[in-house]
């Protein structure tokens, strides 16, 4: 029993996930080697690595790789730094703590399409948007966010959405901070900064690792937020790898090239996964 049962219990999850991974992967590899354009009916001839060459030499390719990483990096930095700050701020009891928590957590439940449209139109519209009005109120020239700062706009939108998640995890983690240790440090004359640096931050280490990991998983392939706001533009200014592949597949109808691009994304994801396992994997046991 002890040999067979654990495997049998694991089988459904492992088998379905394996199929979910391998079947599309094999099909993608196959598509990436043939000429397959939905707009050009006819035979799907073998073209070798032509699709890969085409995808890499696309002038949008390197910018989109770079923007994928920029997006990932900035959102993670912003949410972790602000998340820790906010968690420290609201950790101690104060009047209305419960309501503040509920308000803070709310953006996490908003679906990406709503989030994106809300910011694009009602917040960031240069004329009627709230930010524009605030800028005007202070005598500044309103910013046309989606046109002039497309990538930054997407970063702001994503950071707003992920901040509650990071903050919540840090709050939960702070609750198990050893208070006696803190008290002892204070008695010994440790400054606030020292307490934070030598006690609080190490304590938060594991939860920071988890936040980075989860956000990486979801932000590597951000799509809806870009699709509904800037559509990757202007030009390619806010195109990430996921959106570039989408453009090839469903806007240029070139399945072959899109599949070659998808394989790049898979490779990138695997590099990130190896990196992640090194960094946070050991924290999971």
């Amino acid at each position, binding site marked *: 029993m002890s040999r067979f049962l654990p495997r049998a219990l694991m089988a459904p999850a492992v088998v379905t996930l394996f199929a979910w991974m391998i079947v599309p992967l094999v099909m993608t590899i196959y598509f990436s080697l043939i000429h397959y354009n939905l707009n050009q009916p006819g035979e799907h001839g073998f073209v070798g690595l032509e699709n890969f060459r085409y995808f890499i030499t696309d002038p949008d390719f390197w910018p989109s790789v770079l923007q994928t990483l920029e997006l990932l990096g900035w959102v993670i930095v912003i949410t972790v730094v602000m998340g820790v700050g906010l968690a420290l*701020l609201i950790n101690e009891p104060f009047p209305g703590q419960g309501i503040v928590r509920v308000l803070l957590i709310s953006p996490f*439940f908003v679906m990406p399409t709503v989030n994106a449209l809300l910011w694009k139109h009602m917040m960031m519209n240069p004329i009627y948007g709230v930010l524009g009005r605030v800028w005007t109120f202070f005598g500044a020239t309103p910013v046309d966010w989606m046109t002039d700062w497309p990538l930054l706009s997407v970063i702001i939108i994503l950071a707003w959405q992920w901040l509650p998640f990071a903050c919540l995890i840090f709050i939960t983690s702070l609750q198990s901070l050893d208070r006696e240790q803190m008290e002892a440090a204070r008695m010994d004359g440790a400054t606030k900064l020292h307490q934070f640096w030598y006690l609080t931050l190490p304590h938060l280490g594991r939860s920071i690792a988890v936040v980075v990991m989860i956000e990486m998983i979801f932000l590597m392939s951000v799509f*809806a937020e870009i699709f509904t706001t800037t559509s990757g533009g202007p030009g390619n200014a806010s195109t990430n790898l996921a959106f570039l592949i989408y453009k090839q597949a469903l806007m240029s109808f070139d399945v072959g090239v899109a599949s070659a691009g998808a394989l790049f994304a898979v490779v990138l994801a695997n590099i990130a996964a190896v990196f992640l396992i090194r960094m946070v994997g050991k924290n999971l046991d």
Partner: protein
Amino acid sequence: MKKKAPFPLVRTIASWFIALLLFFPLFWLGITAFKTEGQAIAGHLFFSPTLASFVEVQARSDYLHYAFNSLITSVVSTVLGLLIAAPAAYSMAFFRTKKTRDILMWMLSTKMMPAVGALVPIYVMAQTTGMLDSLPALIIVFTLSNLPIMVWMLYSAFKEVPNDILEAVRLDGATVWDEFRHAILPLTMGGIASTGLLCLVLAWNEAFWSLNLTSANAGTLAALIAQYSSPEGLFWAKLSAASLLAIAPIIVFGWFSQKQLVQGLTFGAVK
């Protein structure tokens, strides 16, 4: 002399200020939904509310149809996911081998692959099996894409069950099912609940597959909103009304379940 804790007034004001600032976009969305299109553009804080936009959204794109799709896909995919993930997590937590961590990491790595990479194959498969724009297709995709997270969360929860309890139960000659039902289930109910809650939220809010695999028939609320994305004259009030209708159920649900949800959200990171 012992130093007094910092005066809570500053902390209180700062906390409230930041919380209100971060919540403001949603507040704005909420009040814009009750404005006329003209008032929406004018952007005043005070106005006489109207339900016109809600009426128009329902008339134009049958909100209830999309809401029903969202509800069915998220509930069914969550239940299905729990049924598949729980045995796997149980096996990983209680029959741990050297490979357990590798398997878990492999599962998580499947989640890291951009969905867009699998879009064409999945689309082609859905098309050839006639499942394009159908609820079962969405349910399968949601279940599978949430599965790694579910296994991870449940594994973290099961791992916390003390070993001596398990040994005591096993000595009594309980079967695996008894052990699960009478010992593990009651002890890990919180973790299981929060896993389910998170997956419900993720599935309700899922946009990529809903946008690409569905249209009028199986569209979810996330896809419905995208219809209001292209400017057509004045549309902010309608957009807000549709958005509010789409997010209100899950936000209210989230408010009530947040304590429970947070408990498992830490993925075993907090001891």
